[in-house]
């Protein structure tokens, strides 16, 4: 399928050259929006990738394939502008060595190397990959003459913390109608993450997505530029047309269906397809000739699989890089889909249930059936679950004050309603009023535990120098070990605990060691949980105490 002519050190691959050509608009776009640094990074990835592949190819006595440049450019285009070069170096090393060379080099890998590399750094360096986005340059010449779009006049770096797609997912961007509201003076896509939501006209959003004046990865901000290259691939038949149509089509259709059913936060077909580099993945990565299926029926299923998986991952998981995981999943199924696709024809005449495609279709229907039942059931009980969570929260607030006693849920609810209020002057803490005077603060705390989030309440005396008690309403720590933080023997240590004026407000010491004021015993055997609990408790406490004392000083 891939014609190859040999030379001593570089294997000529016409297909790969066409792909490189198709990528030119995206690379230039990256330069225009984010500065010369993007070109430098792309070049660095190419050289570094070539060097790594050469190390391995030399041993096998093979020439380096040109595909490594495609890998490098694609990988670079999926990096956020201004990402540290070490990130790119590690990612390329993973892409070339661990997702290509260990399988025997070009043509023998079963994951798309660029995506596997990106996936590795995405999980390895979450802050560099998802937390820092440069705003694209403004003005007609963009940042063609500048190193980076982020450097302000005073040299400081302006960054935002989320892409428009992430804002949309979090509900911070809401759509108005097509034209209303009119374009705001500032770029509408730079929102303070803490600052509520803004309403954007659909046309503004679409223009942003099409022409790339939005934060995002280097090559994936402008749908128009990607599509230019994509059309070239499509028309010349360099990439499989079936896969392109199947991926984009199924993703659009699934999105629109979910959107019509009102499933939040699915944004509908066009913002989904145009946003977040979906097109880059669909045109250039899902069609990788090595890691995608070769038979036509298998290609259709592969595309649908990717469309569905990226919908689910993008909207309902903690990751925004939905298409990346989806394509890797699709790659994983490629061999079996190919076998199924080939066999399907060969097994003609045998009974229906023996055909491989019957099996796949059957699995699909059964999955859809049971998933629908579960979704319906979960929706039906949603309200009840919300009420339970509310009561659990209120009970935790009451338990944080050991002097309060209650027996039933309704009693707890009533007491909570009468005595607790969320007042602005307490900065996020609930104020406990007893007999008309303030008797304490209930400060909600939360943070990452060993397995999942730990959420709880700290009861604090009105003078803010003593902790009255501690209670949890959500934790999923290891039962019998970490989960023992909810047991009285541990929580009782926080009764009337003095907050230490210097250093960390609360110190957890190993079980059995001597304690001074402000120190409690950790649970032996639950080091991880206790370590994290210590961090989240102290962070929440310190922040709140600081805010409160600042407020006091101002008055």
């Amino acid at each position, binding site marked *: 399928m891939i014609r190859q002519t040999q030379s001593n050190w570089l294997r000529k691959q016409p297909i790969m050259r066409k792909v490189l050509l198709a990528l030119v608009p995206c690379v230039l776009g990256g330069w225009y929006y984010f500065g010369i640094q993007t070109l430098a990074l792309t070049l660095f990835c190419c050289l570094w990738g070539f060097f790594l592949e050469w190390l391995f190819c030399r041993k096998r006595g093979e020439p380096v394939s040109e595909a490594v440049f495609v890998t490098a450019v694609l990988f670079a285009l999926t990096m956020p502008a201004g990402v540290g070069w070490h990130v790119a170096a590690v990612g390329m090393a993973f892409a070339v060595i661990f997702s290509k060379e260990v399988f025997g080099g070009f043509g023998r890998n079963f994951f798309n190397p660029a995506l596997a590399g990106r996936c590795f750094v995405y999980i390895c360096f979450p802050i560099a990959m998802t937390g820092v986005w440069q705003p694209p340059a403004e003005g007609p010449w963009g940042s063609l003459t500048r190193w980076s779009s982020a450097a302000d006049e005073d040299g400081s770096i302006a960054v935002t913390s989320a892409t428009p797609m992430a804002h949309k997912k979090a509900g911070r961007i809401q759509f108005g109608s097509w034209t209303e509201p009119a374009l705001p003076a500032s770029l509408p896509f730079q929102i303070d993450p803490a600052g509520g939501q803004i309403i954007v006209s659909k046309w503004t959003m679409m223009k942003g997505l099409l022409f790339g004046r939005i934060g995002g990865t280097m090559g994936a901000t402008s749908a128009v530029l990607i599509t230019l290259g994509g059309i070239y691939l499509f028309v010349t038949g360099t990439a499989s047309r079936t896969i392109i149509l199947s991926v984009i089509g199924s993703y659009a259709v699934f999105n629109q269906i979910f959107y019509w059913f009102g499933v939040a936060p699915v944004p509908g077909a066009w913002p989904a397809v145009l946003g977040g580099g979906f097109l880059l993945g669909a045109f250039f990565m899902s069609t990788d000739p090595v890691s995608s299926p070769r038979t036509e029926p298998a290609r259709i299923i592969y595309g649908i699989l990717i469309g569905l998986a990226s919908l689910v991952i993008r909207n309902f998981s903690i990751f925004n890089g939905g298409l990346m995981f989806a394509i890797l999943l699709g790659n994983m199924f490629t061999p079996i889909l190919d076998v199924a696709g080939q066999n399907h024809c060969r097994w003609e005449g045998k009974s229906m249930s023996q055909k491989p495609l019957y099996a796949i279709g059957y699995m699909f229907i059964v999955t859809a059936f049971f998933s629908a039942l579960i979704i319906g*059931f979960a929706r039906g009980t949603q309200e009840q679950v919300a009420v339970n969570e509310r009561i659990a929260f209120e009970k935790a607030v009451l338990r944080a004050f050991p002097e309060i006693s209650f027996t039933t849920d309704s009693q707890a609810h009533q007491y909570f309603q009468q005595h607790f209020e969320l007042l602005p002057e307490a900065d996020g803490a609930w104020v406990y009023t007893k007999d008309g005077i303030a008797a304490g603060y209930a400060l909600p705390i939360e943070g990452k535990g060993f397995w999942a989030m730990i959420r709880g309440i700290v009861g604090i005396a009105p003078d803010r120098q003593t902790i009255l008690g501690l209670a949890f309403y959500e934790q999923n720590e290891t039962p019998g070990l970490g989960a023992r933080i909810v047991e009285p023997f541990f929580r009782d240590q926080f009764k009337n605990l003095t907050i230490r004026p210097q250093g960390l407000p609360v110190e957890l010491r190993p079980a059995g060691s001597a304690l001074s004021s402000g120190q409690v015993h950790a649970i032996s055997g639950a080091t991880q949980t206790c370590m994290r609990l210590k961090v989240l408790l102290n962070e929440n406490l310190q922040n709140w105490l600081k805010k409160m004392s600042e407020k006091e000083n101002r008055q």
Partner: protein
Amino acid sequence: MTSAENSKNLRTLALDGLWRDNPIFRQILGICSTLAVTNLVINTFVMCAALTLVTAMSCLTVSLLRNRTPRNIRMMVQTLIIGFYVVIVDVILKAWWPDMSRNLGPYVGLILTNCIVMGRCEAFAGSNKPLAALWDGLFSGLGYSYVLLAIAAVREMLGMGTFLGWPVPYFSSPYWDKWIIMVMPPGGFFVLACVLWITRSIKPKEAKK
């Protein structure tokens, strides 16, 4: 397939699940949850009820679909069906018994990986008629349940001096020094070992008959 079906009558099936092929002390399956949730009788009771329900219903569903399911993907379909019932149980607990849901934590979800469920689906339900499969799943679950409840009763009494939360006369008094290890996971190992020891030592008598 049909000739082998229902060669065992319902009485035999029930006895198999409860004693002769008891999942815990004959097949040594589902040990992980045995150790994890048996420190309180009430937790164990809910866990057992959930597992029995999931096993019985999964067996029924697997059996209903057995003639349509292609052989080569039957395990995937079984896992899916089991997962479905596990999620349902999880949602029910979350909605109507949130405290228990919090107590059991991840263990409800882990019913999915309990070997008993998969074992019965694969070994029996996949090649037998729905009613027999339901019956078999039910009694396998019950066989698992009474052993676990027995273990839990011992652990809770020795470790906390209570039964279902009620103080047990002698064990809750100051004369009884509580065995803390019984509340912790290792306690489950010891009691389980004793149960295996006792039940296995009864077997020779039966064999002689």
